[in-house]
């Protein structure tokens, strides 16, 4: 069967789609989509192939967009995405993730919503907002945002979320109750180095074996967990910086993840020494390998944001990342060599890779 690829890109000036084939060499750009709204995340509903886009307009507020024709036409809804008339106003949707027939949306200020009717209406997952730590949640530099949503592969009742400057949480009962999952994660900026919460998780991903192995890129280091986040182990050693935003996990090898270290939180947040590189591990973070082949070797003072790296599920795996200065890079050999496939886009907020039949 001929396979087609679609790279889904979210930017502050709308969503874009790059259409390609399984060779992953030639790409054609479509967009801007979603009426030029700021779009933080574009993903695929696994069971239908529908595109989902999370964003928020300066004028018209937050919404989750949906396209059932690969981006040609869209609908949108925020019906139910509200903390109620007495609650805080929701500015934007940061993440949209579908699994098990449910669509989840993470919003700012941080909270989780879900839809059981393909995104037409939404309900607040109030159990997370009711967590006893909620009154003490403080926004990070990017706001108080729920940006990572990680559903368990088979257990519909298990879900992890990541909230900037608050940390990771897990529910095992479908969202009714939640527990913090930050043990072993540093909060180097806080008076207590290992608090129960307050860690600044930047991106949370699940390893390929699909259940208990998680990774996270944090404000303060890179971590792995073998028990669903109950205990984290730092794996920063070998990387040029503890700071970065994105992380992506191999679709079949649980020991392989990619990350893009930036020079530091308070030093400009660009690739170290202006030399672009993606780092990967094949042994769960015991050792790290740098690859900059095909990327700018100097004068590249670019950043990559938390949602702006993705992998496909072809063999070998394709890896993609978009920069805060509008370049999109692709590797079709699991991150060993790179080439630029789009330039002059708006700042890239998110990248997702979809393999279409």
């Amino acid at each position, binding site marked *: 069967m001929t396979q087609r690829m679609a790279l889904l890109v979210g930017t*502050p000036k709308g969503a874009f789609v790059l259409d390609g084939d399984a060779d992953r060499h030639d790409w054609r750009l479509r967009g801007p989509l979603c*009426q030029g709204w700021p779009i933080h995340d574009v993903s695929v509903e696994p069971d239908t192939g529908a595109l989902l886009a999370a964003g928020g*307009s*300066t*004028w*018209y*507020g937050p*919404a989750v967009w949906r396209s059932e024709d690969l981006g040609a*036409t869209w609908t*949108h*809804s*925020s*019906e139910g995405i*509200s*903390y*109620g*008339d*007495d*609650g*805080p*106003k*929701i500015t934007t949707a940061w993440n949209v993730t579908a699994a098990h027939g449910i669509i989840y949306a993470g919003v700012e200020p941080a909270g989780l919503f879900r839809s059981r009717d393909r995104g037409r209406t939404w309900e607040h997952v109030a159990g997370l907002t009711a967590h006893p730590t909620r009154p003490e949640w403080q926004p990070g530099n990017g706001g108080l945002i729920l940006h990572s949503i990680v559903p368990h592969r088979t257990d519909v009742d298990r879900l992890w979320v990541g909230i900037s400057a608050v940390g990771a949480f897990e529910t095992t009962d479908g969202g009714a109750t939640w527990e913090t999952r930050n043990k072993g994660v540093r909060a180097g900026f806080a008076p207590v180095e290992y608090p129960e919460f307050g860690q600044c998780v930047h991106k949370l991903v699940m390893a390929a074996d699909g259940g208990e192995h998680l990774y996270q890129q944090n404000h303060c280091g890179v971590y792995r967990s073998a028990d669903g986040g109950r205990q984290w182990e730092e794996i920063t050693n070998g990387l040029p910086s503890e700071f970065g935003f994105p992380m992506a996990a191999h679709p079949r090898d649980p020991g392989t993840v990619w990350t893009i270290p930036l020079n530091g939180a308070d030093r400009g947040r660009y690739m170290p020494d202006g030399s672009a590189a993606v780092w990967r591990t094949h042994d769960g973070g015991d050792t790290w390998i740098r690859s900059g082949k095909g990327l700018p070797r100097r004068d590249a003072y670019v950043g990559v944001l938390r949602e702006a790296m993705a992998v496909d599920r072809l063999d070998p795996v394709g890896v993609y990342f978009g920069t805060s200065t509008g370049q999109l890079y692709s590797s079709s050999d699991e991150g060993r060599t790179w080439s630029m496939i789009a330039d002059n886009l708006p700042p890239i907020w998110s990248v997702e890779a979809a393999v279409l039949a």
Partner: protein
Amino acid sequence: MTEGAAPAIVHLPRSLVALFPGVERRVPAEGATVAEVIDDLDRQVPGIRNRLLDAGPSIRTHINIYVAAERASLDTPVTPGADVHVVPAVSGGR
């Protein structure tokens, strides 16, 4: 509103009707206040209320509504046949 009275005419901005394919820039809607007119508008264009109003409910920060060319709130009375303009604020720069 008196039965049979002329509805208000709601003038919608291009960026808003673009979100609802097929909707005209001018839509008749009934109601004695801006809030009621928006409710009627939402019956005709499901979802448009969420684009105009925030929690509270309140008119979204960067949306202005005018009745007969006067800046309005949700409580502002709307007389039959009045022109109601929805105007996005000139915001931004990014």
